[in-house]
């Protein structure tokens, strides 16, 4: 089930808290649409990127093609530049948490 969600790339799956079977589903476009409140032009848009799992083979770093090595989705744009007030990023972070709390599933 999780791998299917991973592959469609529109939903990001993130494990939640203590429960290893609880996951938050977030829509990638909703993440990209988040803006700090109040807005600031100094804050770039968030993005969702896909990182393949890599492996070393014969001294070369290559994409890991073994079964189950799907890689993972990650967010970019949450690292605050030193000249930008941190309240903008804390606003973004709390909105991101709100978004993640909207859809939490528990696998049984």
């Amino acid at each position: 089930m999780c791998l299917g969600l991973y592959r469609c790339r529109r939903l990001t799956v993130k494990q939640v808290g203590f429960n290893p079977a609880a996951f938050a589903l977030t829509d990638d476009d909703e993440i990209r649409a988040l803006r700090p409140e109040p807005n600031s032009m100094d804050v770039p848009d968030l993005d969702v990127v896909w990182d393949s799992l890599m492996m070393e083979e014969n001294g070369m770093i290559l994409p890991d093609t073994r079964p189950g090595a799907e890689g993972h989705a990650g967010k970019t744009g949450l690292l605050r530049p030193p000249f930008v007030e941190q309240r903008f990023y804390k606003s973004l972070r709390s909105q991101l948490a709100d978004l993640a709390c909207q859809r939490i599933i528990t696998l049984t």
Partner: protein
Amino acid sequence: MATTSYEDALREQTRGQRLSDYLREMRREGNIDVDMVALSWRAWNMLHAATSNKLPVPDACPGPDGHMLYTWDLREHHLELEMFANNPAELFYRNRLSGNLWEFDLDIRNLDREDPIPQEVLQKLSLFFPECPTA
């Protein structure tokens, strides 16, 4: 109503124990060090005592650099307490409806009877008190 209050108190006591267990678990996993465990536990106990035990147990999450984040959420109110190894803790409030933001630096290590938790911090914490049951 008395039963509800008792159950609420019991649930909060259980959550407090879970917070303690969680901090120790994060220490075992290497997400935070022993000093951060102590600071986080001290912060919770001081805020809890300063609010006459009305403040609910927060959700907790370690950060990437060994710091600890507490959050409280109730309706439109969101409050964070972010604790760092070498700097004062940062409080951040966001109102989901009005968009109002508020920030405050709180030096938990130096809080004591002579230097108590400021009134404006207590006012923000009071937004998260459970509503009193009607008699």
